[in-house]
C-alpha cells in the first residue's frame, strides 16, 4: 500500500504562499497514491523554473535538469530503461519557450511519459516577465507597453502534431487534476496536461477567481475525446469559458515499441557480449 505520507519530502518548500503549484503538487501525490506507484519506482524529470522545482518537494527519484531541456533528457532516460515511469514537470517558459523545439519533437516521437506544464502565463522564477503563453496586451515590468505577440497554444500545437493524450487541468480543482494525471500516466504514449496555474506574485490577471469563473468540466459534459476537430475547437476556446478535461485521446504505437532491440528488455538490462563484438571487429 502506498500512502500520501510516502511522498512527503523533508526538503523545505520554496514556493510563495498561495501559489498554484501547491494544488498541482497535491494532485500529483493523490494520483500517485491511487496508482499505487512507490516513490522508488517513480522518476521525475524537470527543467528550470518554479514549476521545475516540484520534484524536490516530493520524495522520488528525480533529475532537475536544465531550463527547457527536460524532455530530451527524459527521452534518453526512457530509451535506456523503458520500464521507467516518468513524469515531467515543466513551466510555460521552460516547455513552450526555451524548450519549444524539444516539445514538438517529443510529441512526434510519442515517448511514453507524462508532461505536466504548469502554465502560469508568466516567468515566475525570473520575476514576472511575459512568457510565451501570456495574453496579448499583458503588461509586465519588462513589457511595460504590453505583450505584442499572440499567446502560444500548447494544446493546439500538440493536437496538430498528433499527440495521443491532450488535456487541460486547473490547479484549483485538485480532484479533477488528479484524475487527469492518473489517466495521463495510464496512457501508453506521450501525454500532455497543460495546467492553468495561478501565480499569486506576478500574474494579477489570470487569478484563481478568474479561472474559477471560466473553467467548465468536460467530464461533466460527457464529452467524448475521440474527435480531433472537436478537440481542436476546445483547445482554442479561451475567454469566457475554458474547458478542462481530456480534450483528445487516441493510443498509437509508442516510441519504444518501434525499436526492435527493446523487445529483448530494457537496454540497461541487456548483456555485453565480447564474442559478438569480436565478430564485428574481425569482419
Amino acid at each position: 500500500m502506498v500512502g500520501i505520507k510516502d511522498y512527503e519530502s523533508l526538503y523545505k518548500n520554496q514556493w510563495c504562499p498561495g501559489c498554484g503549484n501547491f494544488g498541482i503538487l497535491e494532485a500529483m501525490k493523490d494520483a500517485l497514491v491511487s496508482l499505487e506507484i512507490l516513490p522508488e519506482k517513480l522518476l521525475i524529470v524537470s527543467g528550470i523554473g518554479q514549476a521545475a522545482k516540484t520534484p524536490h518537494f516530493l520524495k522520488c527519484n528525480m533529475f532537475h535538469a536544465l531550463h527547457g531541456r527536460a524532455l530530451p533528457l527524459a527521452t534518453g532516460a526512457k530509451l535506456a530503461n523503458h520500464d521507467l515511469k516518468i513524469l515531467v514537470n515543466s513551466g510555460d517558459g521552460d516547455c513552450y519557450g526555451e524548450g519549444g523545439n524539444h516539445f514538438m519533437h517529443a510529441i512526434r516521437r510519442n515517448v511514453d511519459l507524462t508532461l505536466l506544464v504548469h502554465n502560469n502565463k508568466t516567468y515566475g522564477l525570473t520575476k514576472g516577465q511575459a512568457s510565451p503563453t501570456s495574453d496579448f496586451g499583458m503588461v509586465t515590468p519588462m513589457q511595460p507597453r504590453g505583450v505584442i505577440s499572440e499567446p502560444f497554444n500548447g494544446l493546439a500545437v500538440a493536437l496538430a502534431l498528433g499527440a495521443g493524450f491532450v488535456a487541460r487541468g486547473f490547479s484549483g480543482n485538485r480532484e479533477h487534476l488528479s484524475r487527469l494525471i492518473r489517466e495521463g500516466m495510464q496512457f501508453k504514449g506521450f501525454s500532455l496536461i497543460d495546467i492553468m496555474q495561478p501565480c499569486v506574485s506576478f500574474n494579477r490577471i489570470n487569478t484563481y477567481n478568474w479561472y474559477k469563473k471560466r473553467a467548465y468540466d468536460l467530464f461533466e459534459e460527457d464529452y467524448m475525446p475521440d474527435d480531433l476537430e472537436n478537440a481542436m475547437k476546445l483547445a482554442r476556446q479561451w475567454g469566457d469559458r475554458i474547458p478542462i478535461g481530456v480534450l483528445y485521446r487516441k493510443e498509437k504505437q509508442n516510441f519504444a515499441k518501434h525499436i526492435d532491440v527493446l523487445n529483448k528488455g530494457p537496454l540497461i538490462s541487456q548483456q555485453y557480449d565480447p564474442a559478438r563484438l569480436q565478430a564485428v571487429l574481425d569482419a
Partner: protein
Amino acid sequence: MSIDITVKIGGEAGQGIQTMGHMLALVCREAGLYLMAINDFESRIRGGHSFFQIRICDKPVQAPHHKVHLLVALNRETYDLHKGQLASGGRVIMDEIDGSGEGDLIALPFSELAKKAGGMIFANTVAAGACLALLGTPFELFKKVLSKQFGKKGADVLEKNYYAAELGYQVVKEVAFKWSFEWRADKPKGALMDGSKAIALGALAGDCRLAAFYPMSPATGIMTHLSLLSDRFPLIVEQVEDEIAAVNAIIGASFAGTRAMTSTSGGGFCLMTEGLGLAGITETPIVIVNAQRPGPATGLPTRTAQGDLHFVIRASQDEFPRFVFAPGMPDEAYEITSRAFHLSEKYQVPAIILIDQYLADSMYIAQKPYVAPERIERFIAQDDDMENPQQYKRFAVTSTGVSPRALPCAGKALVVISSDEHREDGHISEAIPDRIAMVDKRNAKVPFMIKEMNPPKEYYGESGTLLVGWGSTEGAVKEAVDRLRDEGSDIGCLNFVDLWPFPADAAVDALKKTKQFLMVEQNSTAQLGQLLREQTGFVHSGAILKYDGRPFYPNEIVDGVKKYVR
C-alpha cells in the same frame, strides 16, 4: 625496392570518386600493401571539385604525399589543377573527350569503353582497370576485389564489371609507366579503417548503448557506422532535433544506467556546452566526439582543423573536471574511445574526444587487430552495497571526490539530482558550506584523473630539437622527423593524445630534455604551445601552423622546420 606511389583521382562531386578510390584501396589491401588515403571534397552534392588521394606503400604509412605519380582526371579541371604535382615520370589518364596532346597525358576512350561494357555506370571500373594496369596490378587481384564488391548484385552485374575492368586493362597495355611496380601476393596486413569507423567500433568496445546526434560534417560518419551495426547490439542510434537534445538525451540515458555518446563538430559542440556543464555539475558520465572543422560558425564544413582545443578544455561556464583526448590514428581512436567511456564512468565526468575531418575521413590499414574487451567494468552502486539505501546520498563527499552512483528506480535508494548547486543528498542548496564542499569534491577528482593520463608519445625524444603536436598530425610529423634525420638533423617529436586534465609533470619531463621545440598545429595561434607555456613554463621557439583547412603534408613540415633549424 621500396614502394611509395601516390594516385590521385579527381573530378566533380557525384562522379563516383570515392567509390573508385575505395576500389583501389581494397585492391592494395588485398595485395598485402599498406595505404593511406585522404578524401578532399566540397560542401556540395554535385559539381565542384573533389579528389581522393591514395598513397600506396610496402611499409606502414600514416600521412599523404605531396607528389602524385598517377593522376586520374575525371574531368579537364582536375588535370589543370593538379598537373603541377606530378612526380617525374608521373602520368595522367583522362577521357579523350576532355582533351589530349600534352606529353604526360594519356587520353583514353573511357566513355566509349564504358558504353561498350554496358553504360556510363561502368566508367569507374574502366578507369580503375586502366589505373591498376598501369601500376602493374595482376588482373586476377582486381577481379577478386570486384567479385567481393559486386558478387551480391548478381552474375550479370559482376560479369559486366569484369568486362569493363578488362577493357580498362587492355586500353593501356602498350603504355609504359615509370612507376609501375611488382605486386607480390601477400596476406592483407589489416582491416581497411577510417577514423569514423574506428570510433564507432571503439564506442561498442566501450559498451555504448545510446548514440544521439544531429548530423554535422565531419562527425556524421561515426553515427552512420554505428547505425549500420545497431541491429546487432543493445544499441539505439537516434537522430534528434538538435545538438542540445543530443547532449541532454545522452545525459538522461547515462543517468538511467547505460553508457551513451554523441558526435558533432564545433558548431554543434557550441550548442552542447550548457549540457556539458550539466554533466559536470551532476557528475554524469558522457562521451562527446568533436570532429573539428575550420570555423567559426559554419566555417569550412568539409575541411580539417585543430582549432577547438582551447574551446573544449574550457567549454561551459565555471569550472569542473573533464577528460579530453585527441587520438592520432584510427587504431588509437579505437582504444581511446573505449577508454573514454571507461574513465568517464569511473570518475563520473564528461569525456571529450577531439578528432578532425582528416582523421575522420582518411583511410588507413589497421596495424593491429582490434580486440573486444573481455568484460566491461561498471561503476554502479546497488542497494546491497549500501548500509542503508534509504539514506543514500548521490553526492556524498568522499576522499576521491567520486560518490557511489546508484541508478534511478533500481532499488530503495532514491537518486536525487539537480543542476542547481546542491547538498550531498542532491537537493538544491545555496548554503556556503555546501557550495564549497561540492566545488572541492568535484575538483578532488583531478589529481586522480591526472594519474590516468598518459605522457606525450616520444619519437626520438632525446633529440636537440623536438616537434610538438597533438592528435591527427602525428603521422605527418613523424614522417617529417624521419626525413630530417635522414638528412642528418638531430630532431624528434612529441605527440600529445591525453590532453586534459593536462599531464603537466609528464610534459615537463619530456620537454626538459630538449634544447628547443617547435609546435606543429592545424590552427593559427599554436593552441597547444600556449597551453604548454601556461602549464609547464616552457616556451616554444617556433611554430609550423597550417589553417587552410587541408591536412599537413610531411614536406610542408620539413620546409617549415628548415626556417628555424639550419
